[in-house]
Structure formats: C-alpha cells, structure tokens
C-alpha cells in the first residue's frame, strides 16, 4: 500500500499563505476557518536571527490519536495511502479528536462535524497534487509516496536534513520539514 506524505522545504518557503488560500477555495473552507496555516518561528536577538517558516496542517500520522479517540469511528485511516480522514456522516461533533490532536489541526465545521486537511484526497485519486502543493509559488512543497523509494519525497528525505513536528508524542507524523 502507498504511504502518502508531504515534504516541505523550509529553506524555500516565504510564508506567503498561498497554500492556505488555495486550500480555502479548493475545499470551500468556511469563513473564519483554515485547514492549513503558516508558522513563523524566530530565534535570536536582533540582528542575529534565524527564522524557520513552515506551512502546517494535519500530519496524517501513522499513529493518529484522533482516530484512536474517536467514539464513532468517523475518524479513520483511509485505504488511500494512509490519509487520515473523517466520515462526516458518522461524526457527532464531540471534539474528542480536537482534544487529542497535538497539532491543533482540526476544527468543528459550522455544519457540526470535525474537519481538517484531507491531503486533497479527491485530487490525489485523480493523480493530482494537493491544491496547496500545486499552487505554491516557491515550489517548496512536495507530495508523494514514501513506500516508493524512487518518489521525489523519498529522495528528498534521503538526501536532506529534516524534522517533524512534536515527534515526542509518538504520533509518527507524515509531514516532513526540510531544513
């Protein structure tokens, strides 16, 4: 089975929020909410500063606490490359997943169900990249299958240094940040 992952090059990212806007229109994300966001993290004292800029979202964890905590089975790991999804018909909006997620990736849609980044599963099944990846003006985002050693994402992780978010939580996140 495929293991879909996103690799994001923080060296190229300028934090312009294009990924956030493209997600919003592609997925009709309601006003007041976003499924992805930008984190700007600055270390140091002026003028000796270092800044990392990251496009963040659901990490589609291999070990997803949101799935384990869901009382109805709405949150699940899909057959499509391990993407973590929510079956909106089964969701009762109890927010257990929101409490469990260490990335604050989820929110309750005004229609009452939990929602979040889907890795644009509807595009992926058509062979397209997620909307954020395909719009990024800096080409800093990559999407692909880590099971395939020849995929661009596999090669990037083999050749570059990277980190993931909150590795200490044991969630095995599948969004990787090149540094």
């Amino acid at each position, binding site marked *: 089975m495929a293991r879909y992952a996103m690799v994001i090059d923080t060296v190229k990212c*300028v934090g312009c929020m294009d990924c956030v*806007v493209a997600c919003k*229109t592609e997925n009709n994300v309601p006003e007041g909410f976003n499924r992805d*966001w930008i984190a700007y993290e600055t270390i140091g004292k*002026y003028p000796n*500063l270092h*800044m990392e800029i990251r496009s963040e979202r659901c990490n589609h964890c291999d070990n997803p606490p949101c799935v384990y905590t869901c009382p109805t089975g709405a949150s699940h790991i899909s057959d499509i490359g391990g993407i973590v999804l929510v079956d909106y018909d089964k969701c009762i909006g109890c927010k257990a997943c929101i409490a469990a997620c*260490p990335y*604050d990736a989820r929110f309750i849609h005004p229609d009452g169900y939990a929602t979040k980044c889907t890795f644009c599963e509807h595009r992926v099944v058509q062979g397209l990249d997620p909307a954020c990846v395909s719009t990024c003006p800096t080409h800093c985002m990559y999407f692909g299958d880590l099971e395939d050693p020849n995929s661009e994402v596999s090669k990037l992780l083999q050749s570059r240094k990277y980190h993931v978010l*909150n590795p200490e939580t044991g969630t095995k996140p599948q969004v990787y940040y090149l540094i």
Partner: protein
Amino acid sequence: MEKFTRRKFLEISGATFAGSGLIVGGRKIIENSLYATDKTKGIVKIPSYCSICFWKCGLIGYVKDGKLWKLEGNPLDPLSKGRLCPRGNGGVGQHYDPDRLQAPLIRVSQRGEEQWKVATWDEALNHSAKKLMEIKEKYGPQSIAVFSHGPGGAFLKHTLRAFGVKNFAAPSFAQCRGPREVAFELTYGEIIGSPERTDIKNSKCFALIGSHLGENMHNSQVQEFAEAIANGATIIVVDPRFSIAASKAKYYLPIKPGTDTALLLAWINVLITENLYDKEFVEKYTYGFNQLREYIQPFTPEWAFVETGIEPELIRETIRKLAIHKPASFVHPGRHVNWYGNDVQRLRAVAIINALLGNWNHKGAFFKPVKMDIPKYPYPPFPDVNYDVVYNPDSKYPFAGEEEGLTQGIRSATITGEPYPIKAWIVYGTNLIQTLPNQNETIEAIKKLDFLMVIDVIPTEITMWADVVLPEAIYLERFDELNISPFREPFVGIRQPVVPPPHDQREGWWIARELAVKLGLESYYPWKHIEEYLRFRIESAGLSYEQLKKDGVIVGKQQPIFVEDGLQLEFPFTPTQKIELYSTQLAEKGFSPLPTYERPPEPPPGYFRLLFGRVPVHTFSMTQSNPILMDMVNENEVWINSDIGKNYGLNNGDFVVLVNQDGVRSNKIKVRLTQRIRPDCVYMYHGFGHTSKKLKRAYLKGASDTQLITRYDIDPIMGGTGMNNNFVTFEKV
C-alpha cells in the same frame, strides 16, 4: 522566540521548538464561451488575467454549476507559470464580497456626508456628462483631472483624451516606482519597467535594498527568488527590519533607515579602490568614470559605518561577493522607492554599481524585455489641446513622468488654483485617501472641486467623497485591455469574463464608451463592443483571436534577451550614448551629476521612524473587503523592537494609538513585539485602518500608515513624495 497564528479558532499549545507562542494562520477550455451562467452545469474553465495587483498573471477560472469556484494559474502564461499568488487565488472572494458597490449612486447631500440615491446607469452617466460639459464650458478641458491606476482605466482615459483632457496621473510614479525609472533612464537610457527586468533565477549573487520579496508577492519575481535560494545564490539583504527575504539571506545588513545611499557610495568606493569593477565594460560602455573615481574617494566603508551602523568589514565583504560573481550579480533596483525625497540620487548609485559590475543585459542580472508587437486600434486623432499639464508648472521637476504624471501636483493645483484651477476629478481604481501622503491635503482638495466621479468595485474612502459613484464589474466579470507586458518572451494575454457581475455593475470599457456617447464623442468609438476592438488588434498582429480566447495567452517567438544569447549592447537613448555614471542630464539641470547622500532627519526623543510595507495577502488598500484574504490577515500590527516595547510597558497584543510628529493620532493598532526590527523604527503593513463604514470587514481594523504620513519630502529631480520621514510615539489604549 516568536510564533504566531491567524487562525481565529484556536491557539497552538504544543510547540516543536523550545518556547511557546501563537501560530498565525492562516486543458480543457470551453471555446467561445462568454461566461458560465447559473444554468451551466459541471465545471467550466475560462482563462483570463488577474487584476488583484498589477503583475497581470494569467489565470484559469473554474466555474462549478454556474458559480465561481476557484482560480488557478494558467500554465501557458509566462508571469504565473501555472501558479497564482495568495491574492490571485483569493480573487474569488472579491466576486462574492457582499460589501461591493452594486448600483450607480448620485449624492443627495453635502460632499462627505455619504447620502446617496441609487440611480440607473442612464441617470448617473447623463448627470456626469452634464457636469463635465458644464465644467469644460466654464473652465476649459484643462480643469478636469483623471487619476487612474491599472489596465482597466485604458478606455476611460481614451474617452477623456477625446474630451480634451491632458491632466492624467497615477500613484505608480510619484508614490511608487518613479525615482527608479528616472534614475535608470538617466543612467542607461532605459527604464526597469514592470514586471522588473531582473534575472533573479540565474543570479549567483544579488542584493536587495529594502525590497521585501516574499512579502511583496509579485508572482514570477517571487518564483525566481525561491529558485535562486534553491540554487544557492548568495543573497544580501539590506533592511532595518529582518524581513522574510532577510531570513533567506547569507548576509543581513541591519541598516539605519535612510542611510542606504551611504552604503551604496561605500560599495562604489570599494569596487573602484580595490579594482573589483569590470574594467573592459566600464571603458567600452560608460561615461564619466574618472569623475566618479575622483568623487568617490571620501566615501570609505569607515565613513559609511558612522552613517549606516554597518561594520566596514561587512560592507567590504558583501561588495566583494557581488564583484566575484559579476556579471551574474546585481543590486536590485527595488519597486516602491519613494522614501526620503532624494531617491533618484540613491537609485542612481544603484544603477552605477550595476554598471561597474558590467551586468546590463547579462544573464543573472538584467534582461532586455521584449514585447509582442500588437498594432494599436486606428482611432481618429484626439483634438488639439494647447495647454500645459497642471502638475508640473514651469517644469519645476525636470524629470517628472509624462505618462503617469504627478498625483500630488494635481492635488496642490486643486487646492491653490495655480497654475490654473482644477474643478473636476475622475478617479478610477485608486483609493486616493489611502494612497497619497497627507490625507488632509487630499480632503482639502476634494472640497474645492465642483465634481468628483469615482469608478471602483468596493466602497473605498475616496467613494465616500464622490458626487457620482459608478460600480465596475470586477476583473473576473469583464473584458478589458490586452496585457502586452514587456518580459522574457513576447506574449499577449486576454481578460475576459469568467462569471457575470452579480448586481448592476458594468464593465469599465462599457462605462467609458457610454460616457463618450453622452459627451458627444461617439466617433471616437468606431467599435460597439470591446470584442470588435480586441479582435481587430489581435488579427492585425496576425494572431488568432479564437486561440487567444481559448488559451488566455499567446506566446511569441523567443528573442535574444541577454548578451550571452548574442544581444548587442547599445545605449542610444542617453546624450553620450553610453551608460552615464556621470549624468550629463542632471548636470545640465543643475543637479549633482554624481549621487549625493543626505543624512536623514533624526526622530525627536521618544519617537520612532515609521516604516511601512506589504503583507503577501493584500494589495494596497484594495483587498481588505475580500472575505477570503481577510481570513488570512484582517488587521495590521505595529512592529516594535521587543526591548523597546518592554521599556514602554507594552505586551504583545496590547493596543496602542500611534501619534505622529504633527500630533496626528491613528486608530488603535495591535502591538507586535519582535526582535525582527531595529530599536529606532517601527513598521506596519500598508492598506489597513479603513474609515469607510461601508467596508464592514475592514472598518477600523488596524491603523492607516497613510494617515500618519503627514510629512512628505519631494524629490527635486522628479517630484516623487518621500514618505519615510515621519515619526511616531505610542499611547496605550
């Protein structure tokens, strides 16, 4: 450490790095279709070009079941290369914005009281035509001035030229790029132009002086910037603020604001004294090197250190890097460059450094822009009008732009009635209240007018003062002038409607043509529908109009744009036919022919220099009503060095009022304490602090930098308004 979020619904608690904080969040093309309608089922893709800024990227509009769904970049288009910027993607929000202007309005009370009646187009245009004819009758055509920004104003300007108007101005010159174009024209005989002719993607080393690429989202330029980062280019960023670009730079020079020219002179000094310049190029192509060599002697890095605060060794090391990589290295000429009122001199220094690097039309520095040859439409000649433009009496500013005029020159003539009275303003697509420095002067001028007509898409501050407001269809709902931008390859782009306007908005060309008809100028419009005009021009160029409509863009044959491709270097447009290191034209007009540095004024005690710039998700004050883009960034903050903020007892998220040197008080604005700025200045995003109540999302969100810019220093060479000599202090709310 800082981290922040724009997601309204939560704050992130678990941080990956040590410390805590907040996160801020935020080709199947249907042939010959006009636009999709409510009855269209399924997905229809219609190509057009963007107007959310003036880069004019090719886009593809996706319409799902008759409703605008999303926008993507057009892969055939050289400017977007298939990817739009965040504002471009967010253009969808402009279509759905509930606060849009919906129908023509005619004022029914005092100007500024905002009482209107909804009018039909016939009424509104008849009323406007009557007013304009009365004013022309009484004061002559010279008493009418037009402010127009962007390609959409082309037809309106055509109508008014036919009416005898010559006083046109756009803020793109005296408030934005003017000093750069003048400096390069004086030096090379050619301008930089828009899109900029910089070859960032092939560059080995480049310096940005205050240019915040990545926050300034001109699409292909940002794409190239990222490419240069990936290629390992040596990036040098000179900025009082640790910008996004600074975070990508190998060298960050935390310069004292207003002292850039001192740094540039020191760079020239090192290039010459260390013999790092391109001798062959200088000998063959430049004029005045000996005068420059003599002049530059005192401007050592040690001298510049005192002015700029940049260590002499860092000054030497950075210019040596630029020199090592020549000719694939350059100093970026910037874009918004009206800073201190002596900006042409600073940009002349930039032009000179580039000449010393021998990089003109060389790969990795500058290319020679090429343009698709599309014949003009054969209109009848405009009437002969014999008067001087109002904004530059006696050629006070000898190098003022002719095409783009001097906005503030029209304003001051309107106030004083000198050299002659201005009685009507026609304003297209530019919110003068949030664009021109010193708002009181703008309002004073407006009060002297007999007639103010505004054409816009949202109820901006300038519409509040209008006598007639004409609501235009947004760029996704209209045909427009062709995009024939000079760029890396010749191309032409079409703007055509993706969806119909939702209310009684009309296309700009239609408004302009109808106004012409009512002014008795129908003979100036031999075509009835703009498609006749567009087809004529495209077919006269030997291209297929059907193909243009289907593909959105037609790209012409590649031509040499670099010396490396066989391009010959020539400079026929300067008096000496060389690159003028020593400007004979400036000397002739009594200005210093070699770039001069003036020490900027110091802030009074307890005050900080006010700097402003751009946020990637907004364009000027034009996008704060857009629900999608406001979900990204919905107010501006004042960036204050955190050490300074602590001294004032300020915390992140506190609100302050900014008070400037003239006692002008801003709307309340959120404090952002940060290490990313020098202690002697503060920074804010431009475009916020709207005071038009009809902009419900944007009303009193954040503060207006323009309101605080009461002082402006006019560049004596070209009349640009330097806007960075204002100082503010804080009052806690």
